[in-house]
């Protein structure tokens, strides 16, 4: 309303001109607006407060206003302005893309993995900004471009460093019945893995066209997911690949601890289907038997409300660590120092995801032969050597993967991998510092200079080096840490 009459095209609110009314959501009106000083396409969201002042509308709008103003980056709509008490509104970037709700299931597995990895990347981004979405569903995910998706509608979300207006206002759980995680049913609002569960529901939907838990409206029906596991995706669609079923069912685990620890780790799995360790989940052809479900029902039917706790540390405790390993004979002396450094990190990071990487340097000009003189495929040979190299590391099988790349520029390949896989920490060795190496520049120094994350450069202790190498005596020994974050 403006001066007692309904809003119409041409009205101006705080400098924003209303250009066109868009489809109304359930809880708000949307207008395309423009502003003299802003070139971005804009949308104004005005909550529908006249309908008897529904608390969910009001408080959800407050919560969104609070959280959206604190979020940045390509995975959220850019926040532009908010109204005051008299005239509440939010102006934000208008996204022209389609939402995931327009996709028609079932999609091919590689397409699902591609989309899922983009959504997981967006979740990783907001989780790192201390925000849990808590209402993730296809209609809240908009495709921005080929690279990124945007998450919208933060009305039910939680910012872990700000007051939780939604959690304080309502005694019953809030969310969308088809997508809420079991712990959300128990009033938990501080676990980023609730979003991983919702993404699991979306992947299930894209793979089968079915909702794993239906679309229950009543809260009492939401509780069923505390004991009843979903039918495996292959029950609906026999074409679902085992690795995809493994990923989906791991996301949908009842206990958050059994899911992927972080969105970055889920994204990693979706980007490397061949490396997904297949467990009983991949084989599952039916649901758990009545006895198992009955026992879970007994244990969970009266499961109490979950008290707030600090889940922020989880993101820091479950990093993706990349070991860039040099398999050449000259690096043999470094091996022990590198293993010691990796063991130290693994001891303190039990839930880390570990990627062992080796770069097969190719010539820039000539086409390299696919086989060496003995007729072996060098790529496969490297992979075998890499696994052999890593066998002494104390990492569980489902937490380690091996990758061999071919590139004329090893440093660039390492950096690109780190960026594409949200690597938190690169650990690599540096060979001695001969005059020639200093002249040409070393791979490790280039990685240190350009990596998007923390880099640890491991050196061979001085005493272990060949005493004839005069540079060694003056070079640094031990471990150098350099934080490029």
């Amino acid at each position, binding site marked *: 309303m403006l001066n007692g009459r309904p809003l119409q095209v041409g009205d101006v609110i705080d400098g924003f001109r209303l250009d066109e009314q868009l489809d109304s959501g359930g809880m708000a009106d949307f207008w395309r607006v423009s502003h003299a000083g802003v070139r971005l396409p804009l949308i104004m969201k005005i909550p529908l407060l006249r309908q008897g*002042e529904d*608390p969910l509308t*009001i*408080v959800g709008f*407050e919560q969104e*206003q*609070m959280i959206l*103003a*604190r979020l940045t980056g390509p995975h959220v709509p850019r926040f532009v302005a908010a*109204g*005051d*008490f008299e005239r*509440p509104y939010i102006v934000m970037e208008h996204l022209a893309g389609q939402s995931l709700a327009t996709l028609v299931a079932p999609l091919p597995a590689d397409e699902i993995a591609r989309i899922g990895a983009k959504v997981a990347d967006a979740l990783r981004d907001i989780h790192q900004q201390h925000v849990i979405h808590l209402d993730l569903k296809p209609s809240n995910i908009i495709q921005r471009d080929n690279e990124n998706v945007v998450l919208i509608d933060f009305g039910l979300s939680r910012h872990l*460093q*700000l*007051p*939780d*207006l939604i959690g*304080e*206002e309502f005694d019953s759980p809030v969310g969308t019945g088809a997508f809420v995680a079991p712990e959300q049913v128990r009033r938990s609002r501080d676990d980023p893995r609730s979003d991983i569960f919702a993404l699991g529901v979306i992947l299930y939907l894209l793979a089968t066209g079915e909702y794993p838990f239906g679309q229950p409206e009543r809260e009492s029906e939401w509780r069923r997911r505390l004991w009843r596991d979903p039918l495996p995706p292959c029950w609906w669609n026999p074409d679902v690949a085992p690795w995809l079923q493994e990923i989906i069912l791991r996301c949908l685990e009842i206990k958050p601890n059994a899911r992927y620890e972080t969105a970055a780790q889920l994204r990693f799995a979706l980007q490397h289907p061949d490396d997904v360790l297949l467990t009983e989940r991949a084989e599952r052809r039916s649901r758990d038997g009545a006895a198992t479900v009955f026992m879970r029902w007994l244990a969970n039917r009266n499961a109490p409300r979950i008290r707030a706790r600090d889940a922020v540390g989880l993101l820091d405790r479950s990093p993706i660590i990349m070991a860039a390993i040099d398999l050449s004979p000259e690096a043999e002396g470094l091996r022990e120092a590198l293993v010691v450094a990796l063991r130290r990190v693994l001891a303190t990071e039990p839930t880390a995801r570990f990627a062992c990487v080796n770069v097969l340097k190719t010539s820039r000009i000539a086409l390299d032969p696919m086989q060496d003189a003995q007729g072996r495929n060098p790529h496969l040979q490297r992979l075998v050597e890499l696994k052999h190299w890593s066998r002494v590391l104390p990492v569980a099988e489902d937490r380690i993967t091996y990758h061999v790349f071919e590139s004329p520029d090893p440093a660039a390949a390492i950096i690109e991998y780190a960026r594409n896989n949200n690597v938190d920490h690169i650990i690599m060795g540096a060979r001695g510092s001969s005059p020639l190496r200093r002249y040409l520049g070393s791979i490790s120094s280039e990685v240190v200079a350009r990596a998007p994350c923390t880099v640890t450069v491991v050196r061979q202790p001085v005493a272990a080096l060949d005493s004839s190498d005069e540079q060694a005596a003056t070079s640094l020994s031990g471990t150098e840490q350099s934080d490029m974050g």
Partner: protein
Amino acid sequence: MRIALISDIHANREAFEACLDHARRNAVDEYVFLGDYVGYGADPGWVVDSVMAHVERGAIAILGNHDAAAVSQVADMNEDAATAIEWTKTKLTRTQSDFLSRLPLTAQRGGYLYVHANPVAPADWGYVADLYSASRSLVATQAHATFCGHTHVPGLFHMSITGKFAGFDPIDRVEIPLTPRRRWLAVIGSVGQPRDHNPAACYALLDDSHDVLTYIRVPYDIDTAAKKIRDAGLPIGLSYRLYQGY
């Protein structure tokens, strides 16, 4: 405009200077002092002079219960506090005492209310220490946001449009939007004698154009402040507690 909210300095010059330094580096335009400039600490004169100088340049200063006690005959407080107040009386000049005795109990600026203790009855020096006492003051005032001190423990309370109350432990240097359709009560921690087990001085920055509040912890030279308390012959416990932040 950026407003520094400073409360419960308690004659701790080192902590106060550290907060003023931080505020200056962060381009603060205005200062609001929420009372208790004296008591407990060893530098009442310097602190009161500094607050007076800020007030001459337009700052707001509110009366605290220790300030009132330092310029009157009766004081209802514990033994250490009463000893410190008697000592303080001997240190304040006439000008400083006059300044303290003229301070108001509350000040209102737009939608903001500034007060030292619980705004339900400012002169009764009640605490806002829990959700119950906070809810009473959220109902009693009409202000969009009320800022007080007195407890030495930072806390942020709020009431939704439906009348639901909640409390929140603010996190150091995280900007909190004070959303419009809600009533807020911000207890600013203490500069000179924090009691939330974090010994760093506490104050807050308020951006009134966007209604954004940020609590800030500032480390300071506790050794010097504690030594001055011992050298002045004030109760020894008043120096120890600075290290523990209680």
